[in-house]
């Protein structure tokens, strides 16, 4: 019995595989050497905002002029993945010298002793008028401060001037009532019943805590809060009340009664830039997007409306912190770098380069505003806007996420349309979710 096999191709394949393996190992051998130790300090920075990388590198180049020999390596990835990487690396001592991260994780690091409190000079710098009190408080925990603010997200209302002019409306709405009226005039629905232009682009679908965050843009002006802190220091839900019901009712009306938005149409910055949405609540980075994709768009930026003429303006403030690893071997240089990074000149630079805003005081924003006046509301927010921020407690992200799981379903639920009782019921259920998570964390209290 014989087996016919092509010996030559067999041998050829084997030698091909061998040479491939050899090449691979040679390449691997060259690469597996750990980086050689340097005389001058090398700082490693990890960021979950890939758009910040050119900024970090530019500032590092300037910093090296003042402190020659210091090298800075920047590593970036998308935010969720970078959070995973930091969560594994920091506790095990394989992390970077400097990193930026959100409060949810930085809080855990602080509680686990992986981040040092700011040294005295940095503490003084933070509290010494470089930032407003609201931001400074956000970086304080039990009397000590941790990290420095690098960027700060504020949301404002983008509105399409051309569309408003077309509809005969003079300026941007200042109350939610005016907003609904304007949206109704501008929304376009074609002959087959499909919405071709939404009056206001709300966050209606998808997944993640962002849905609840945008919900708070309506909830807060209406007079509610996602969580409120009790005098005892414990927390409870803050929206099982008239404000919460009004906010949910607003969303239901937007989608079902007044029909000024629809989950099926395009949303967010891309839609606004393309002229498919007349109004949008978003942060400053949209300005950069518009410049890139549709520079001729005629639009303005105004504060997010108050609920009615008697209510306050409320604006979310989302600081983002940059921290020094408690296990870093170059802490002194790191802190110097961070102080340099947050100087007023660099604050201007970050907004110019990335479109993200900064809360730094003492910055001369005029070069930026001359070029792009739409930044005004972000860098010089009106004095009557009351800021609110995420409470810095462990369970907050989970509470937002779990409520976000429910909200898209509620917005399109027909049984909530014109049915205040059911809306109240739904709010109660969401409030129970929040309270249960607080109870699990031992943080719940009603007094």
């Amino acid at each position, binding site marked *: 019995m014989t087996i016919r096999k092509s010996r030559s191709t067999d041998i050829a394949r084997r030698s091909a595989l061998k040479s491939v393996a050899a090449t691979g190992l040679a390449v691997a051998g060259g690469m597996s050497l750990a980086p050689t130790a340097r005389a001058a300090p090398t700082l490693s920075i990890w960021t979950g905002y890939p758009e910040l990388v050119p900024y970090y590198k530019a500032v590092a180049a300037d910093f090296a002029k003042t402190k020659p020999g210091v090298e800075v390596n920047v590593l970036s990835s998308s935010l*969720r993945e970078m*959070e*995973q990487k930091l*969560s*594994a690396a*920091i*506790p095990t001592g394989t992390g970077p010298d400097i990193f930026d991260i959100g409060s949810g994780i930085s809080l*855990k*690091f602080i*509680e*686990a002793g*992986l981040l040092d409190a700011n040294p005295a000079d940095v503490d003084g710098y933070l509290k010494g008028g470089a930032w407003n009190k609201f931001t400074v408080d956000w970086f304080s925990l039990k009397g000590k401060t941790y990290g420095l603010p690098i960027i700060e997200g504020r949301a404002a209302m983008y509105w399409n001037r051309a569309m408003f002019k077309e509809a005969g409306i003079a300026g941007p709405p200042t109350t939610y009532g005016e907003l609904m009226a304007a949206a109704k005039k501008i929304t376009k629905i074609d002959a087959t019943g*499909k919405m*071709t232009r939404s009056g206001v*682009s709300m*966050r*209606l*679908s*998808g*997944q*993640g805590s*962002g849905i609840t965050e945008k919900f708070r843009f309506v909830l807060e002006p209406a007079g509610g809060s996602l969580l409120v802190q009790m005098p005892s220091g414990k927390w409870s839900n803050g929206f099982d009340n008239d404000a919460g019901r009004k906010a949910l009712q607003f969303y239901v009306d937007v989608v079902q009664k007044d029909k000024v938005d629809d*989950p*099926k*149409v*395009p*949303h*967010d910055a*891309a*839609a606004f830039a393309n002229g498919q949405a007349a109004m949008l609540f978003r942060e400053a980075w949209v300005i950069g997007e518009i410049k890139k994709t549709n520079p001729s768009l005629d639009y303005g930026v105004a504060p997010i409306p108050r609920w009615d003429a008697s209510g306050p303006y409320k604006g979310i403030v989302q600081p983002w912190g940059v921290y020094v690893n408690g296990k870093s071997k170059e802490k002194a240089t790191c802190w110097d770098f961070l102080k340099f990074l947050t100087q007023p000149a660099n604050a201007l630079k970050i907004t110019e380069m990335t479109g993200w805003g900064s809360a730094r005081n003492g910055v001369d924003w005029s070069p930026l505003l001359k070029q792009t006046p739409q930044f005004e509301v972000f860098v010089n927010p009106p004095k009557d806007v009351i800021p609110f921020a995420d409470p810095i407690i462990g369970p907050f*992200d*989970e509470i937002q*996420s779990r409520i*976000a*799981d*429910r909200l*898209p*379903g509620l917005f*399109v639920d027909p049984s909530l349309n014109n049915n205040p009782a059911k809306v109240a019921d739904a709010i109660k259920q969401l409030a129970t979710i929040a309270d249960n998570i607080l109870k699990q964390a031992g943080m719940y209290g009603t007094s």
Partner: protein
Amino acid sequence: MIARLADASRSWLHENFTRDNWRLLLFCYVALAPVLLLFGYVRAWPILKSFVLSFYKWELINPVRPFIGWLNYEMLLEDENFHLALKNTAVYSISTVMLSTLLALPLAIFLARKSRFSAIYQTLYFLPVITPMVPMSIAWKWIYDYNHGILNYLLSLVGLPSVAWLTDPDIALWALIIMGVWKMLGYSMILLLVGIRNIPSTYVEAAAIDGASGWRQFRFVTLPLLKPILLYVFVTSTINAFNVFTQVYVMTLGSQSAPGQAVRVIVFDIYQNAFQYFRMGYASAEAVMLTLIVLGFTLIQFRIARDKAGQDG
């Protein structure tokens, strides 16, 4: 009595452990040793550790890790998100596997012929398998778009109303199933080609000589001989489908996307519990549950294959 036992065991040893047997046995263990070592270090050991962690309350960053026994599993059985994820993932897996395999079979049989077109078709049908998930999800969001997507455009050509593929909670999962089939088809096709190509031509010729028509040939010659590969395709597709994560995750990102709950899948739930809520012990328990469920499916598939009197070397 002891002498008799000794005799019996000696003869048993002689029967079963001849020199030849020893030689073969030695070969087995020596050949397997490096592979098993790699397997142990890279898979078995970390998985075992993760399994052990499911009995603890472990917050990754928190150094305190109390032992809590079955508590994670009890909480899991009452977790609404887990139930929803289980239901969605089961529907997704079964549909994707059945559809992609049933479509891949005739495709592979047709393309097994060596024609000039075969090579082109094979390559085109395999392309989706090698595409990265993030750009593809963006492309599919465009295809599924309500107002301007290709699918609704085609529907309008035949007078059918537009479908809200991604944004309708009842349809979103099916939109993802279609995308899943799109990605998996080429994978199943290539494997079935391996199987078909290795059916010795003598069998096929013999059947033709016996007067078997195309269909009979397929049913009584090709199909039984494809059993081992078909089993492979079913088992591995099921495992892959139950582990779906990236494409679902990307399709729900951003504000023009599928409603999260409608397409919540198990691995996303595991990821969320582990890396967003930092409940690593709980996430480990969930992974254990997923493994047991899929293992159950796998064993059933093996049993079905064996019952049909397949060859088992």
